[in-house]
C-alpha cells in the first residue's frame, strides 16, 4: 500500500508544486504589505491566500478524480493493474493519498493563516477589526459558530471529511463510466448525473440531522456521517472495479 501511495503522490506532484508556488507569490505580496504598512497589498495578499487555500484544496481533490480517470482510460492503466494489487488496494491508496494531501495542505494553509494573522496582530492595529469580521462571517454561516480554536479545528475536520466523501463519489462516477456504462452513449453524462444525484441526496440527509446544542458535537456527527458515506462508496466502487473493470 505504501508503494502505491508513493506513486500516487508522485503522479500529482506537479500540480501541488504549482499551488505551492502560487501561494508563495501571494504570501510575498502579503508580507510586503504588512512590513511596508501598505493597505492594498495586505488585503490583496489576504484575499489571494484565501483563494489559494480554497482553490488549492479543491483542485487537489479534483486532480485525484482526473488521475483515476486517466489511470483507467489510458495505457498507463497497465502500470497499476499489472501489479499484484487488488482494486480495493489501488483505490484505497488513491483515497488515502488524496485525503493525506488535503490534510497536509489544510494544515499548511491553516499554519500559514495563523502565522500571517499573528504577524498582523503584532505589526498592525487592524487585526482586531479583521478578527471581528471573521467572527461575523462565521456567525453568518451558523449563529452558534464563534472564533474558538477547537470549533475552528473541528470545522476544518468536517470539511475534510466532506471533501473526501465527494472525492470518493467522484471515483464511483469515473468507475461507472469505465465499467457498466463503458461504450454506451452518454456514459460520462449519466455518471455526472449520478454524481449530482448522490451529492443532492447526501445534502438532503445532512439537513435532516437534528441540530444539537453544541456546535462541536454537530460538526463531529457530520464528520462521522461523511466518513461512513466515504467507506460505503469506497466499497461499492472497489467492488465494481474488481468485478467489472477491463483496462
Amino acid at each position, binding site marked *: 500500500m505504501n508503494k502505491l501511495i508513493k506513486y500516487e503522490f*508522485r503522479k500529482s506532484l506537479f500540480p501541488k508544486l504549482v499551488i505551492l508556488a502560487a501561494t508563495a507569490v501571494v504570501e510575498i505580496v502579503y508580507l510586503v504589505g504588512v512590513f511596508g504598512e501598505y493597505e492594498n497589498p495586505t488585503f490583496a495578499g489576504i484575499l489571494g491566500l484565501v483563494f489559494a487555500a480554497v482553490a488549492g484544496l479543491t483542485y487537489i481533490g479534483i486532480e485525484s478524480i482526473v488521475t483515476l480517470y486517466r489511470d483507467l482510460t489510458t495505457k498507463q492503466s497497465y502500470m497499476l493493474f499489472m501489479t499484484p494489487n487488488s482494486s480495493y488496494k489501488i483505490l484505497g491508496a488513491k483515497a488515502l493519498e488524496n485525503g493525506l494531501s488535503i490534510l497536509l495542505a489544510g494544515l499548511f494553509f491553516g499554519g500559514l493563516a495563523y502565522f500571517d494573522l499573528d504577524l498582523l496582530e503584532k505589526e498592525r492595529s487592524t487585526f482586531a477589526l479583521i478578527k471581528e469580521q471573521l467572527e461575523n462571517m462565521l456567525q453568518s454561516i451558523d449563529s452558534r459558530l464563534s472564533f474558538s480554536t477547537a470549533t475552528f479545528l473541528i470545522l476544518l475536520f468536517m470539511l475534510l471529511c466532506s471533501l473526501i466523501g465527494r472525492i470518493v463519489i467522484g471515483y464511483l462516477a469515473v468507475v461507472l463510466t469505465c465499467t457498466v456504462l463503458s461504450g454506451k452513449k452518454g456514459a460520462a453524462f449519466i455518471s455526472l448525473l449520478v454524481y449530482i444525484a448522490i451529492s443532492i441526496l447526501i445534502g438532503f440527509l445532512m439537513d435532516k440531522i437534528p441540530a444539537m446544542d453544541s456546535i462541536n458535537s454537530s460538526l463531529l456527527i457530520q464528520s462521522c456521517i461523511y466518513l461512513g458515506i466515504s467507506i460505503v462508496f469506497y466499497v461499492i466502487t472497489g467492488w465494481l472495479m474488481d468485478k467489472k473493470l*477491463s483496462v
Partner: protein
Amino acid sequence: MLESKEVTKVFGRKTAVDHISLKLDPGHIYAMLGPNGSGKTTWMKMAAGLIKPTSGEIWYNGHPLEINSRREIAYMSTEPYFYNWMRVSDVGKYYQDFFSDFSMDRYKELLDRMELTGDLKTRSLSSGMMAKLKIAVTMARDARVIMLDEPLNGIDLLARDQIMTSIVETVSSDRVLLISSHLVEELETVADYAVFIRQGHLADFRELEELRMTEGISVADKYRQIYGAGGEYHE
C-alpha cells in the same frame, strides 16, 4: 500451467475472442499468430488479468486467475504504457517496488545490451527505443509465464537479433514463453508451438516439429494456408 477454458470476450457487438480453449505448458516457447484484430492481444490481456472475460475462465497452476497470479505472470503490451514523468531508471525502480521476481542487475545488463541509459526520459524515446525498454523491463523479471505482444514491432533488423537472443536466454523448463508477432519467420526459429488465431477463434494449435514432419511445411506456409496467400484472412 496456463489454461484457457472456453474464453470469450465481447466488446459491444464485436466478439474479439470466441470460445478459445488452449493449454500452455512450461518449458516451451509458443508463437501466437494471426493478423491484426484476430484477438491475440485481447486473449493475452485476459491472461494478464487486465481484461475480464465475458465468459469462460483462465486458470493458472490449477486455479482460476487471481490477483496473486500477477506475481508470476509478466505481460509486455505492444503499446507504450509508462508514466510520462518516468525516466528509464524510474521504470526499473517501479518494477522493483511491485515485483519480487524483478532483478535490477539483470535490468541494467539488458539496458546496456539495448544501448539505453537510465537518465533517458521515457516520453522522449523513439518507438524502437521504447520497444527495447519494454523488453528489458519485462525480461528482467523471473516470471513463470512471460507474454510478449508484438515485441519486434518498430525494431530494426540488428536490434531484433539482440532481442531474440535476450528472449531465448530466458527459456527454462519451468517457464512458459508466449510471443505474438506478425513476423512469422522470426518466431519460427525459436518457437516450439504455434497458436493460430483467426477472427477470435483458435484456428490451429500445432507443434512446429510435428508440422514439418507430418505436413512437410513451415509455419509461414501454414500461416498462408490459414489466412490466405497474402497473410490476410479469407472466408
